[in-house]
């Protein structure tokens, strides 16, 4: 209860306690700048973390429900093996639909590597069949055995081989983003602790006078805590505001740009940065409070 009251008093304004600490321009600017810079970085780390999270979810959802069958056969057998594969798929439980990809679709897939004028009909490009799954999906081992029997040139690719590393990479990137946010918060706490300790050391006379006239440690600490918390709050609010403007001007998600164009916030995620200054203020509150009580306990 006592702690809750002291948190409330920081914002409700015990201006008398605040008044006893002399103004210190440089420390003030340094604390606000640090909080601002840290908040700026936090917002970007948050945007990165959320974007990679979305990407991981999307890849996971999209790739988990599809598979591809690649048919590499001599030209005369390609149509027959394609038909055989489609027939196998039609009679396999867990398959929602299957279709042979058109030449245009295959050309589009190869376009990034070979350019737009690829003469597909003159190249031995395998035929691709896109399979959409339903329910729990097919029994992949059984399907592979049936395909090898009915169409020897067919190879089933259920995307597991490259989906997992991609999803793992995106998940770890998200985790790294969250760890970065924690490290930034820790660094800010450390810097504010140092600034508060420096301010306490520089105000030895003030503390001496206050102790002489009967001020309790909590009164003295509150004066410093209030000042540093408000500085951190204001600095972090400015840093967050600037970072949000920066994120807002990032390119919108686009097919061509893939990951790098989807780094902004989406929907309710825009609310999350609002908590950054609040968390910065809470970090500053505790960092200054602990530093103040530790410093005061060493004085007579």
């Amino acid at each position, binding site marked *: 209860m006592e702690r809750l009251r002291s948190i409330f008093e920081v914002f409700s304004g015990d201006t008398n306690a605040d008044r*006893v600490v*002399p103004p210190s321009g440089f420390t003030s600017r340094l604390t606000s700048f640090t909080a601002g810079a840290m908040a700026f970085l936090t917002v970007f780390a948050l945007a990165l973390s959320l974007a990679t999270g979305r990407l991981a979810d999307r890849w996971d959802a999209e790739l988990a429900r599809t598979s591809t069958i690649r048919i590499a056969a001599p030209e005369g057998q390609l149509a027959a093996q394609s038909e055989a594969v489609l027939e196998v798929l039609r009679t396999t439980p867990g398959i929602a639909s299957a279709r042979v990809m058109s030449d245009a679709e295959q050309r589009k897939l190869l376009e990034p590597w070979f350019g737009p004028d690829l003469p597909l009909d003159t190249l031995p490009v395998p035929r691709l069949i896109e399979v959409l799954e339903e329910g729990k999906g097919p029994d992949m081992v059984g399907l592979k055995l049936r395909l090898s029997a009915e169409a020897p040139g067919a190879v089933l690719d259920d995307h597991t081989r490259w989906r997992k590393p991609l999803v793992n990479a995106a998940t770890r990137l998200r985790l790294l983003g969250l760890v970065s946010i924690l490290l930034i918060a820790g660094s800010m706490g450390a810097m504010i602790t140092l600034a508060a300790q420096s301010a306490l050391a520089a105000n030895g006379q003030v503390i001496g*006078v206050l*102790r002489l*006239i009967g*001020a309790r440690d909590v009164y003295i600490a509150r004066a410093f805590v209030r000042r540093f918390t408000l500085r951190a709050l204001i600095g972090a609010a400015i840093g967050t505001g600037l970072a949000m403007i920066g994120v807002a001007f990032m390119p919108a998600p686009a097919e061509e740009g893939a990951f790098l164009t989807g780094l902004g916030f989406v929907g309710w995620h825009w609310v999350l940065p609002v908590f950054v200054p609040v968390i910065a203020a809470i970090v500053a509150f505790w960092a200054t409070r602990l530093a103040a009580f530790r410093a005061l306990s060493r004085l007579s």
Partner: protein
Amino acid sequence: MIELKNAGFNYGGRDILSDMTLRLSPGSFHFLTGPSGSGKTTLLNLCYQALMPTTGMVRIFEQDVRAMTRDDVARVRRRIGVVHQNCQFLDHISVRDNLTLPLSVSGRESEVDQGNVDDLLGWVGLSERGDALPPELSGGERQRAALARAIIMSPDLILADEPTGNVDWEMAQRLIALLVELNRMGKTILIATHDLNLIRNTKSEVSARVLRISNTKLQLAGADL
């Protein structure tokens, strides 16, 4: 109110005070005298727990100083007005705000009456200096401001270390008259001074005990005082 029993203070292997036994009863008036460096200031510091005795016992308002928490010390100091030789203030706020600071830190800000503050400033001859910053005050003015700050809380005990050291004779008489008046109101006063004339003049006004520190020991001063 203040009780020292065989109290001593040792610093750097040297005894500053030893075997001090003293009792300050409520409403009493004491002078503490002795040569420069004899330990007068150290004894005053023991009386408000600015220093801890290295031997013996010190009790302040019935509390053993060794058993006091930091909050206890703060509460005890609100009942003691201290005037130092080198008075310290918050240099960035006005003399008037410094005077009312003890009320603020003890949560009694609502009791601040600017009329009373003006009267107090007048009593110590600082009517025109209320809005000045402490660094703008002379040595004597600082001591008077410190005395005003010490008494604004109407403390039970006033400890003054050479309170008239930097003021002229007329102002010294005025400050002592103020302390005598406070003593008549029931406050306990302990003044450390080496000014024997001041002690003699005051003794004609009030019944005061004169203590002398000599060779680290406390003794009652002779009849010449």
